[in-house]
């Protein structure tokens, strides 16, 4: 049963500052956010606004002030129920494709036969049959990111945290990967929190978009996106509904970027 009342992820007054040589820098300030089960939420904002910090905090990699709740319980660190995909892929370079995908299952002591079944299925899902025994260095950027996603999915996380997952890919590969992610989300209805600087990508994929201000990052504006995702990409891209939201979000992000610019100007 999906819990319709309690959010899957909830941030309460989350703040995060980094200690630097020139004193503490506030990256994230008083952030409140509730994400429902099965929702796809994107965070967009000017670069360096603390978007990634938000993902790191929810991932449990960085301690922060305030509370991060998953299924109503405060997190104490990273957990396999929250799968993470980074822009830099972060594959284990010394493992082959197969062993990278099997890694999480291996750590959890899943029996070999079951492990093999899951890995074979995921290699099929990402379409990398024939590349099972390649090392990451022998793969293209798009292939690496597919492996990273498969490695995360192998642990069957209820939540996906995506930190600019397609930021390092060329435009064509990015579109293909977006469609694959969309299909995957439509099938599994996992809860997704994605950080991106690409407004079009956010609108195409998410139910809800939160715009973050320049550092210290705060969620300043929120947009709901109502699109029929079953339609092909071209149709969605050319629809008025899509472009209306896209323009609104773009203007909102631009406002934040300009505000940051004028604040940094001497």
């Amino acid at each position: 049963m999906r819990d319709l009342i309690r959010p899957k992820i909830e941030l309460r007054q989350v703040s995060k500052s980094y200690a630097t040589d020139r004193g503490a820098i506030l990256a994230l300030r008083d952030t409140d956010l509730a994400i429902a089960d099965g929702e796809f939420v994107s965070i967009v904002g000017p670069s360096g606004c603390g978007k990634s910090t938000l993902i790191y905090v929810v991932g449990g990699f960085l301690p922060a002030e305030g509370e991060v709740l998953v299924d109503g319980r405060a997190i104490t660190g990273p957990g396999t129920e929250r799968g993470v995909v980074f822009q830099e892929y972060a594959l284990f370079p010394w493992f082959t494709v197969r062993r990278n995908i099997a890694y999480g299952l291996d750590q959890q002591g899943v029996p070999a036969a079951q492990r093999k079944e899951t890995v074979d299925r995921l290699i099929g899902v990402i379409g990398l049959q024939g590349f099972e025994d390649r090392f990451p260095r022998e793969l293209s950027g798009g292939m690496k990111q597919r492996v990273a996603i498969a490695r995360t999915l192998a642990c069957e996380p209820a939540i996906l945290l995506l930190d600019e997952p397609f930021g390092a890919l060329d435009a064509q590969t990015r579109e293909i990967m977006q469609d694959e992610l969309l299909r995957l989300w439509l099938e599994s209805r996992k809860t997704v929190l994605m950080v991106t600087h690409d407004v079009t990508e956010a609108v195409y994929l998410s139910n809800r978009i939160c715009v973050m201000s320049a550092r210290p990052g705060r969620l300043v504006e929120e947009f709901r996106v109502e699109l029929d995702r079953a339609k092909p990409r071209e149709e969605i891209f050319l629809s008025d509904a899509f472009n209306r939201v896209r323009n609104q979000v773009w203007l909102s992000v631009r406002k934040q970027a300009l505000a940051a610019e004028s604040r940094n100007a001497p």
Partner: protein
Amino acid sequence: MHHDLLAHALIRAAPLLLFGILWQAASSVGLINAAFLPSPAAISVALADLLAGGEIGTNIFITLFRAGAGLLLGAVCGIWLGLMMARSLKFRAWVTPIVGGTYSLPKSALIPLFALWFGIGSITAICAVYLACLLPMTVNTFQGVVSTPKVLTWSADALGTRKRQMLRIYLRHALPDVFTGLRIALGFSFVLAISSEMIASTSGIGKLVFLYGENGAYDYMFAAIACVIGVAFLCDRAMLAVSAWCLRWHESAADARAA
């Protein structure tokens, strides 16, 4: 294919061959006094004589044992020290000044001291080799571990890696640097084993070279040195081959094959 390899080897050895020919020519026409520097031909004769007897083989094995034992100990301790330095700030604060202070100290300067403590023989040589190998292993392992990208350990964490297993992530990431350290340490291990034998030993190739030199048998001395060069070269090649296999996943693997 086979001919290509041979031709390639010949081209690579050409500068060495040319050097040998010039040396021989200078000796033959009397430019070099044979009492000070024997000709390559004389050295070759001595080398054939040395290789025919069993003495050189035994002594090379003794030296190899000393160099190998010191290298192994230095590698194990150095990897551990480097890992600890990278993972614990407190440990790093204690060890860094010691590493920095002793980095430029020539370890061979300590051989007489070791000879005083451990007497003449293998333990002194192994200690000298160990100390010389320890620092390059520590420093390189440290570098390799601290340069582990955050996203790599975070990914490992999010995939449920247990605490003990996390060390394996760090060590695996450090492996290319560990091999860099090993190659440097391998060179040091020969230098230190041989110099230690020259100063404080009754056996080993270093002692042999020293004895021939003392007695003015320079052709035999050079022949023994040639054996050292040959063995050291083979060890280095073996190390390269092992490292290439262990690092076949690394970005450098493609370049190494081309070079």
